[in-house]
């Protein structure tokens, strides 16, 4: 098992970049990386290496990002939208829809659906990548995705 110091040296800086793209400011991203490593320290002894340490830590970071979105008010402030570059193209006309979708995503009562949506639509993962990270089958992932899409039809998105 790698030491926490070794994990930090390998993964902290890349994870900072991941967080920074959502927080859009250094200080909040630094806070999130710190929180990730607090949780890694707390849970490292119980880690069973099912998915690889990097995948596990990345998922912790993603959940920190999700928590941040849950806390933020979306309202009309576009600055809380994540950086969609290379994943989604958000034109000004689409900004409101994007906020509505994000609100809908974050308000979903099923945490796993939130993770799936986050990984697919914001992280740009393929379904197989997301399913592997969440340790679920692609059938399960597709079922939850289909249910979410049905609920989103009114947004025509």
């Amino acid at each position, binding site marked *: 098992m790698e030491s*926490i*110091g070794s994990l*930090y*040296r*390998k*993964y*902290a*800086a*890349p*994870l*900072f*970049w*991941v967080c*920074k*793209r959502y*927080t859009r*400011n*250094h*200080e*909040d991203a*630094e*806070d999130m*990386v*710190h929180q990730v*490593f607090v949780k890694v320290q707390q849970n490292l002894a119980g880690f069973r290496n099912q998915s*690889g340490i*990097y*995948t596990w830590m*990345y998922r912790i970071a993603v959940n920190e990002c999700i928590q*941040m979105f849950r*806390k*933020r*008010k979306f309202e009309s*402030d576009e*600055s809380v939208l994540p950086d969609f*570059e*290379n*994943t*989604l193209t958000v034109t000004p006309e689409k900004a409101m829809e994007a906020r509505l979708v994000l609100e809908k995503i974050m308000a979903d009562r099923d945490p796993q659906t939130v993770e799936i949506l986050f*990984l*697919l*639509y914001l*992280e*740009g*993962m*393929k*379904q*197989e*990548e997301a399913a592997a*990270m969440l340790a679920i089958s*692609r059938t399960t992932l597709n079922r939850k995705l289909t249910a979410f899409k049905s609920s989103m039809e009114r947004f025509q998105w």
Partner: protein
Amino acid sequence: MVKTNPDSTGLNAGHPSRFRIAGYLAGALDPAQSRETEAHVLVCPGCATLLADARGQAALFADKFPTLESLDASRVHPVPSPRHRTRSEAPNRPGWLERLQDWFDRGFGMRPALAGLALLAAGTMIYLNLPAGNAGGTAASETGSGSEFTAKGSTGFYLFHNGRQVQGDTLACKPSDTLQLGITSAEPVHYALLYRDDDGGLEAYLDGSGMASAPLGKPMGENLPKSLILEAGWKRESLYCLWSVRPFSLDEAKARAAAVHPDLSSKGAGSLHLQTYLLLEKAAP
């Protein structure tokens, strides 16, 4: 190359995910995934930019918090949560590197003392390839045009003088001449440009760390984003061009340039490599 996956959501089809890019930076991918990512980045400008941004941001974080203890220590004092921060407080004051970058964006890549004057004038440039021990000041010649440049192989800078590629390490210039530098490299590298002026001091044209968010370099060459326009009023100037696969600080670049000597040639991954051009004022006809 990363192939389009039929299971993709369609939002990021064919491009590596952030998970993959961060994993590539962390060295967490298996060799096949690393090769796929590298191959894709070489042909996809968007992903190359994304990777460059990731490298730059990661380097800034690693410099600021090299250990978990340093990050822990910085979090001792609670900071306001995002929802308590007002819009005016939210953006961090840009660091000096970002300000430098901004300055260059506005200042056209000139040294501070000259930025307020008419644009740069005549110079000379040396092209000293230290690792090769070629410090002899070979007279420069110019061949071809930018579009004809086809340098391949080892990493290094190349120079265009008024649009023509320079061969050699010494260059006679006259006021208002334009110099364009570029880098040829198998992978993007961090770079810096320094100059030693008539007073002997070392100053930055472009700082490596400041440009860390956008490392450059392609096998067929990639031009630096800013040209240098030479200004009259000096006789000679050395231009130090440094590059490394890793980010580096201005102080490190200065130390490397100050210790210019063939015996200090850089070797190994992460070394700070140096090329030097000598600019001489071209005698009036």
